[in-house]
């Protein structure tokens, strides 16, 4: 059964904004996501930035990558602020109930000491990695070109702040504030973490926003998340009595799975635009995967012992498969 309300129809003069119609192939009803595209001013800039007088405020020549239509870099998740915020709010409701569940079911007390210690030692310093990731994606948002790509970069940056804070809460739940100090100390001094810290600090001075995207989002995050949240947490800690650790960090795997969809589509679009793009991206990817593997090796060894090379190798292989699918040769 259906009922039929009578409403007044007024014929519209047009269906969407002209700049949106241009991007979606004509004047037709546009989705909310589509109406956020093309929002970046693009012509007749007044003043060169005092912090980068070689370029316009928004300037595609900050990157070696060329595109004729930067707003083609669409997000397959179709995130705009509202859908992203509501999605994260929902996911963090689940995070909240996982924390509540772990605490109310005595799962912390049941956590074997060895697992607790290992989890804290490996995961707590990653707060700082997430903060570095937040810095790099803020930089990508500030200096890359086109609203279609820079907006998701900012969302990514804030996701990383959320992850840094989630890891903080994790450490405070399994331990106390002293754990944060211990993690920070390891990050700054323990040889296990120094190659990774060095990689991040080197990435802070990269000026090409798309190179930075490859170094950080593609290569480092592409290896780190599978290594830590699958190889270490899911495959090692959870079967050994660390179900609580798995529950409390479930967001990270979910987040990674979701964001690689965006990353891969962006790479595919960039690479398919020209063979020069594909070559440049492949060169960056190859170098930065090698570097990230090297930097993660001591962390992997600390987390996984003798299995480390195999797990890290698997992660690198599956990342390479992703990149091959996106049209890169690595």
């Amino acid at each position: 059964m259906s009922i039929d309300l009578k409403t007044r129809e007024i014929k519209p003069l047009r269906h969407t904004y002209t700049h949106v119609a241009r991007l979606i192939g004509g004047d037709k009803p546009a989705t909310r996501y589509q109406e956020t595209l093309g929002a970046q001013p693009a012509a007749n800039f007044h003043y060169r930035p005092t912090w980068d007088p070689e370029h316009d405020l928004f300037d595609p020549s900050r990157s070696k990558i060329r595109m004729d239509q930067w707003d083609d870099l669409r997000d397959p998740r179709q995130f705009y602020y509202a859908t992203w915020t509501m999605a994260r709010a929902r996911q963090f409701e689940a995070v909240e109930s996982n924390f509540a569940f772990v605490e109310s079911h005595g799962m912390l007390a049941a956590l074997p000491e060895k697992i607790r210690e290992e989890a804290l030692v490996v995961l707590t310093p990653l707060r700082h990695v997430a903060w570095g990731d937040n810095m790099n994606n803020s930089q990508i948002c500030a200096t890359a070109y086109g609203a279609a790509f820079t907006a998701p970069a900012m969302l990514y940056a804030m996701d990383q702040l959320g992850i840094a804070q989630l890891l903080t809460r994790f450490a405070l739940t399994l331990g106390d504030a002293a754990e944060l100090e211990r993690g920070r100390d390891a990050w700054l001094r323990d040889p296990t973490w120094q190659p990774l810290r060095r990689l991040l600090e080197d990435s802070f001075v990269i000026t090409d926003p798309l190179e930075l995207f490859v170094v950080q989002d593609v290569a480092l995050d592409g290896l780190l998340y599978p290594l830590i949240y699958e190889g270490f947490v899911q495959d090692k800690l959870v079967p050994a009595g660390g179900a609580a650790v798995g529950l409390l960090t479930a967001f990270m795997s979910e987040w990674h799975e979701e964001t690689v969809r965006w990353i891969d589509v962006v790479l595919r679009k960039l690479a398919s635009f020209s063979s020069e793009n594909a070559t440049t991206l492949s060169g960056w990817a190859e170098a930065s995967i090698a570097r990230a593997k090297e930097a993660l090796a001591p962390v992997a060894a600390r987390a996984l012992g003798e299995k480390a090379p195999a797990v890290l190798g698997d992660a690198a292989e599956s990342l390479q498969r992703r990149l091959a699918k996106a049209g890169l040769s690595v």
Partner: protein
Amino acid sequence: MDTRVEKKKLSLRERYHLMTRGLGWEPTYQPTEKVFPFTAYEGIKIHDWDKWEDPFRLTMDAYWKYQGEKEKKLYAVIDAFAQNNGFLSLTDARYLNAIKIFIQGVTPLEYYAHRGFAFAGRHFRGEGLRVACQMQSLDELRHTQTELHSISVYNKFFNGFHNPLHWFDRVWYLSVPKSFFEDANSSGPFEFLTAISFSFEYVLTNLLFVPFMSGAAYNGDLSTVTFGFSAQSDESRHMTLGIECIKFMLEQDPDNVPIVQRWIDKWFWRGYRVLTLVGMMMDYMLPKRVMSWREAWEIYGEQNGGALFQDLGRYGIREPAGFRDACDGKDHISHQAWLTFYTYDPVAAFHTWVPSDAELDWLSAKYPESFDRYYRPRLLYLREQQAAGTPVANKNLPLLCNVCQIPMFFTEPGDPRRICYRESVYEGERYHFCSDHCKSIFDHEPEKYVQSWLPVHQIYQGNCFKPGTDPTAPGFDPIKAVLDYYEINNGRDNLWYDNSEDRRNFEAWTAEARGN
């Protein structure tokens, strides 16, 4: 095995501190000056970045929760408004011209703020300040998008809404807000914060954002006013960031005081000039008026602003250099702007008109010192000419101020019968200004303002025609060629309200909606 003792509950402040502070570190593999290359070149001295006080202590989980709730409610209203042809309940379609100015001139500024705060959020030191900037970057992205979404329905049924981003980069009057924000974004991070967070958000928001949103409430625009309410708590966070950042700079080192003072002088005046468009909107474009520009200026500018600068006196800050002249302008600027826009309506993407008799009387009552003496006779002349079928259109392009980029129509402080002209010579070229304060902004940083993309100069230089246009062809019509470059639909987006398609449609639709 459970040797852990019951944990002490952390206070909100301690928790926030652990969640945010201490995430960052001093780099050692790269020099700090390379990782943070932009914190020193403006001359601001910071000794302890951790002295930055976090006023809101928001963590991301809380941010997502609050903002997600707000978005849900907002989009429900936007949907309902669109579904039910909510625009039929507007006081009058003239009102929509205020919203045209908003989407053409303000929405793109939200976008600039989004990118500018992303930059500040990366390049400041100190996690507290950076997280505050990053959250504002997100909020500004939100505002850009929700404005495009809530105004989208008007675009479907009315003209002057369809190409705001294209217009923003090209159309003459939009270079006023465009150059304003690009000036801020092209400055260093501290000046950016002074410009946007302090001068714009803290000092002037009540004169920019609030009049538009109150105008929406008064004129039946449920879509826009709901956005306004939804953005209100974001705005209060941004205002707090503004006052905190000023205090932070002033408290860190006495050498910062003169630098900050110069920025306050500059950005107060830059912001005030942009507000001319808002004053005009308040006095002329709202069928149901909220208050006059003069009244708004007296409350928010003179009283609140005056008190603020008195308060900042303890840091050695005085009121902005242009403050007195801004107060002097309150009887004039909205009228001078409207008269100018009326005569240039053939090249503007919104409609103007001569107010009705009742509206003229309202203006007389609100502006007893100036309206009847200087402005009513000119408006009556425009009405007369329009009735005779010869509406007054100015075909000569005006001289623009090289800094604020507003046509040179402002009058001398204290003498509303004489146009105010100032000029400076720099490297052999002469530059023109609307006031002492725009001139002084130029004189301090001429290498920046010689770069201004002045729309009138650009038209005369032939840079505002579509490729392939031949200005030497017989019968060449420069105005039509410029409209073509602007992508303004001649006869639909521009010209006066009385004969507009907007008016015809609105009257037909509402008549049909209210009769049988």
